[in-house]
């Protein structure tokens, strides 16, 4: 159901094509099905099985036995509740800020730059341009830019936005900033593809029918661009909730900003607590699935197809 939100138009088409299911269709689907089975279902089951393993009685570190250790889930929820809540709070904030920044940008490129193909294409390229550089490097670069002693932080201190003993790097604000920055293209592109097709004559019709510019945006532009908003928010919210780079203390975070991803990383790679890390991953996936399903259902995108 969540997948329907990513492709706005094909949802209607798939219902008609599903009628024909001859051998050719099956043959065409086979590579995809094999791929899904090998690289999605197998690891998923492996993950679930690992999440239920119990410690080896010998007490060796990193050794586990197959079992049904449901306690693992209770443990991760009690142990990592702050990180779980923080992950979703950060994901919510970063998605919100990304939408706030991306919508005007996408509107400008998709609507205002209509008829200026060259500038429009150039702007779209600029939105994607950050991808040309590894996002680890970009995040490190932000750490440099925003670190103490740099011109920006000097200015921030001089105008008193931060006290002399306060740092920006390592704060929740820095992590949310990094998440927002890194995921803006994922928000902007789906918004742009929706707004690019938006019929601006509807704006004139709205003005003609006594709607103020603010009303026109609320009643016409925004609802019609809803498919883009949904895909954009999903494409940002889901990966942000599982992100472990920005919040890591090597990048923009500190030990006080760890998210689920950081805990999974630590459990898997440092503490060798595989069942715990797996349980946390499964939990993250389940919560995202529930949130996204409710969101897609409630937002009623099927009206816009």
């Amino acid at each position, binding site marked *: 159901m969540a997948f329907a939100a990513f492709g706005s138009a094909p949802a209607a088409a798939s219902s008609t094509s599903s009628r024909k299911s001859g051998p050719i269709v099956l043959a065409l689907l086979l590579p995809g099905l094999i791929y899904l089975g090998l690289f999605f279902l197998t690891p998923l089951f492996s993950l679930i099985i690992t999440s239920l393993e119990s410690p080896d009685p010998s007490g060796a570190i990193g050794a586990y036995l197959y079992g049904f250790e449901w306690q693992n889930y209770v443990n991760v929820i009690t142990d990592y509740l702050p990180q779980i809540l923080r992950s979703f709070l950060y994901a919510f904030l970063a998605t919100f800020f990304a939408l706030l920044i991306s919508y005007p940008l996408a509107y400008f490129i998709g609507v205002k730059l209509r008829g200026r193909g060259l500038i429009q294409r150039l702007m779209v390229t600029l939105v994607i341009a950050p991808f040309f550089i590894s996002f680890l490097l970009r995040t490190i670069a932000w750490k440099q830019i925003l670190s103490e002693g740099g011109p920006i932080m000097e200015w921030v201190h001089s105008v008193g936005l931060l006290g002399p003993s306060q740092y920006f790097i390592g704060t929740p604000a820095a992590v949310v900033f990094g998440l927002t920055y890194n995921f803006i293209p994922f928000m902007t592109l789906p918004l742009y593809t929706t707004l690019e097709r938006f019929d601006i*004559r*509807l704006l004139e*019709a*709205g003005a*003609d029918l*006594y*709607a103020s510019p603010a009303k026109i945006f609320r009643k016409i532009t925004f609802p019609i661009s*809803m498919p883009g908003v949904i895909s954009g928010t999903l494409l940002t919210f889901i990966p942000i909730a599982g992100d472990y780079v920005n919040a890591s203390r090597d990048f923009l975070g500190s030990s006080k900003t760890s998210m689920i991803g950081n805990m999974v990383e630590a459990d898997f790679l440092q503490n060798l607590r595989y069942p715990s890390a797996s349980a946390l991953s499964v939990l993250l996936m389940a919560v995202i699935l529930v949130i996204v399903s409710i969101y897609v259902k409630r937002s009623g995108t099927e*009206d*816009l197809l």
Partner: protein
Amino acid sequence: MTLANVSGADLELVGIRKEYPGFVAVEELDLKIPAGQFFALLGPSGCGKTTTLRMIAGLDAPTRGKIYLGGKDITDTKAHERAINTVFQSYALFPHMSVLENVAFGLRQRKIPNPVELATEALNLVELGHLALRRPQQLSGGQQQRVALARALVNRPSLLLLDEPLGALDLKLRRQMQIELKAIQIEVGLTFLHVTHDQEEAMDMADTVAVMHKGRIEQMGAPESLYDRPKTAFVAKFLGQSNLFVGDVVEENPNSLSIDVNGHKLTVPKSRAEKHQGKIAIGVRPEKATFHENGKPQESSDINLIGPGEIIDIRFTGVSNQYQIDIPGIGEVTVFAQNVGKSPVTELGAQVWVSWKVEHAFGLADLPAAGEK
């Protein structure tokens, strides 16, 4: 029907001019549309009629000039603050709302009580009450057009603007919508301003037609008088067809004047001529002219007679036959003959004389542009 209780307001344009970078869309426009009238702004594409409509709707601002609605200056009011509604050429129906919500949109914005009831009433007026809960995309072109009309009418605007709303419909549906639109206008008594390039549509529906050309109004009047007495070569050619003859005035009588066209004397009543001296153009409508195949008819002071000429083309259009006659020294003349069962000549190459009553001739204020006759 509560819609019938409203009346439109006068619209007045004073010295309107609209410039865009690089060109002038509207040169100078003065226009007054009395309340309750069906007014048509007629012209070819690019003549500035849609720009004029957009300025009245408030979607574009005039470079100069004033717009008054019901005596009030609305030049600087925003589109959403004007008691004017538009039926757009593209209909511009909101795809994310039902037909009913589309119609109720304007009412909701102005917080009018009972928007759903009023919208239902308006949909019934255009006979679409049974489709109220559909989406606009699920309707046919003609139905969408009627939704657009209902969406505008339901607000009881002082002035309703129609931007070629019938352009996208096929001929049969267009005729039907023309009749319905006119009936609705009479029923609700609003002021309608209809922009179109279809001269038949304009003449059929409007009380007053203004012919626009190159950003100016060339001529304005009732459809009958515009057709009977075009004052410029453009109007004579755009509104129906005309045979035009150019020559110097050689004779002037108390009631008439005559020009000489390569030895042929053509007369026009003074009361039907815009210019009385020098080189002028005289015209006649093709259906007012007749031709004679049996030699030169009797000359008379109340008919204009030219010929002989050769029939070079005959077109059968159903209700009439259209003849092209090439007359040496004058050029091609078009004559329409009604198909009443005794069509005169139907063979190419026949030698004929062409005549028409002096009282049917008209004299123009300008001359046809070089290259056209």
